[in-house]
């Protein structure tokens, strides 16, 4: 007997790969100077000095690839979080990634604007540091998910308060912080891509070694222990890798929310909850969403540019509510 849904899973995988390629192509074509598909091809593969190559290769491609990695990292991280915390609301924000990165980034932007070049690394370190603090606070011979969530809520509000205080005390500089706060890929270029690429690569590779751990944690601590799993170690590994990826993403894009929450839920509806398939399809889904949304944010409102984070929330929240009405798969929402 064959799994009747196996074909569907492969189909989803192929369709998602197709959608991603289409989104990338669309992103290279669209903008204030439209480039036809045929010229995109030339611009990519012929080393000419045409204007099209300038636009496609130096402006649009690095931004698209950065968006791709941001989307991949955020949605994989979100998929892990929901499984580890067995909570449909879990996303990287829950263990302080967003607040930690936010405080570090705002500190740089407001207090040390001359050190802007260090912003991504500071944000990344802020994210990781916040997670470590939350884990340490929750740890008492082990860190069960309930305690991690509560410690996360407390530390998050502390960091959030510090960030708000910083902004109120320096209200004249807040304008420059806003695009970052709402998540934007404006002006991201090859250096940004090169910043995120190694972290993303490490995170993605590490993730695939954690599939078994995540599948087991999903069954709950007791069952995982009875199956011979080392629950605390597995959970720490998964949380660490999730933080690493989400931190890397936020450090170049600012606070893009919702991707990590929405994408894994949609993917679960399509392919089920086994991480072996959930994780790669979520990665593709996150990539598609951020690449497509950023292209829309950049080209649909020309000459204005919209921060992609806001567009994602504006489109994502209603869609998420629509899904919620139908009942999220695998979660008690009724």
């Amino acid at each position, binding site marked *: 007997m064959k799994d009747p849904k196996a074909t569907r899973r492969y189909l989803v995988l192929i369709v998602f790969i197709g959608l991603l390629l289409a989104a990338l192509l669309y992103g290279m074509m669209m903008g204030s100077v439209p480039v036809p598909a045929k010229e995109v091809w030339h611009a990519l593969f012929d080393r000419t000095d045409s204007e099209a190559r300038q636009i496609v290769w130096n402006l649009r491609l690095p931004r698209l690839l950065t968006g791709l990695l941001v989307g991949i990292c955020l949605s994989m991280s979100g998929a892990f979080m929901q499984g580890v915390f067995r909570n449909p609301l879990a996303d990287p924000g829950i263990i302080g990634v967003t607040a930690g990165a936010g405080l570090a980034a705002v500190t740089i932007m407001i207090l040390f604007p001359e050190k802007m070049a260090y912003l991504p690394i500071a944000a990344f370190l802020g994210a990781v540091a916040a997670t470590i603090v939350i884990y340490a606070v929750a740890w008492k011979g082990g860190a069960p998910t309930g305690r991690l969530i509560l410690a996360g809520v407390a530390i998050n509000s502390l960091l959030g308060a510090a960030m708000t205080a910083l902004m109120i005390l320096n209200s004249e500089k807040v304008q420059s912080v806003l695009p970052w706060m709402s998540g934007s890929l404006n002006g991201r270029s090859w250096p940004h891509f090169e910043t995120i690429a190694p972290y993303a690569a490490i995170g993605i590779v590490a993730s695939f070694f954690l599939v078994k751990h995540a*599948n087991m944690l999903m069954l709950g601590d007791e069952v995982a222990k*009875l*199956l011979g799993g080392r629950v605390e170690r597995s959970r720490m590994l998964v949380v660490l890798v999730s933080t690493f990826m989400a931190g890397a993403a936020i450090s170049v894009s600012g606070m893009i929310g919702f991707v990590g929450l929405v994408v894994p839920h949609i993917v679960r509806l399509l392919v089920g909850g086994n991480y072996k398939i959930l994780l790669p399809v979520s990665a593709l889904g996150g990539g598609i969403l951020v690449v497509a949304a950023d292209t829309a944010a950049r080209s649909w409102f020309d000459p204005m540019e919209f921060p992609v984070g806001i567009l994602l929330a504006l489109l994502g929240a209603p869609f998420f509510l629509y899904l919620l009405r139908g009942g999220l798969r695998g979660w008690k929402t009724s």
Partner: protein
Amino acid sequence: MENVLNASSLRYGLQERLIVDGFELSLNKGEMLSIVGPNGSGKSTILRLLSRLLAPKQGAVMLEGEDIARMDTKRVARKLTMLPQTQDHLLDLTVLDLVKQGRHPHLKWFEECRGEHLSIVEWAVEMMDLGDMRFRSLYTLSGGERQRAWIAMALAQLPQTLLLDEPTTYLDISHQIEIMELIRHLNAELHMTIVMVLHDLNQASRYSDRMIAVKDGKIARSGTPEQLFEPSFFREVFQIEASVRMEDGVPVYMPSGSSRTFPPMKKWGGQAIQSNKKAGNAHEAIG
């Protein structure tokens, strides 16, 4: 007889209150044992101590002569496992994917569930009569089917000792008996040693070689069902009046009342309640 599981003077508690106070056990291979007792008597905690989910404050659990607390996690999981109480977490996972998890302790970290491992998974699926549902998602199953899927996962672990925490609670009677017969079948065919916490005393009597009755964390009585089943046992451990008779060579009981006497009823407001409307008012006034 070969001894598989031993517990000596187990003590466990939160802060000062002891939940388990001096539990002893010597379990032979192939035995079917049930632990019974009133709510809050510490039955489930005992099972958690035996399966190493909890560490005792005092005493030790020995699995085949080795201290379970010092054994490698995976090695314990290859010999002993437990089915926790009904899983209410609605997972979007197929039955087959769940049962495959049972092979985890037998796989190396890079190994996939293939070949012989997969045959064992298929065996467990067939054993629990889940063949038609192997690709169904857990949350689409009924309570009984889901319980069978979780048992299949435990079976795929091929444990020599299987602990079950109220495996039939929440199931209707036909599923209850099906599960109990299946447990007996596993015991008879695979010589699997069984320890189960049961609420239904007649089921415990029918399906176990030996029973341990726990009360307030202590062993109140232990022995074969024939030794245990007498009116004084039901009175002391469960505070009920019951008669006992033999049925098909197995002792069964029938409760005839509670040993507890209830306090006299009060008439609220000094008079009997007259109408529904007034009854509502009276409740509001009280609550």
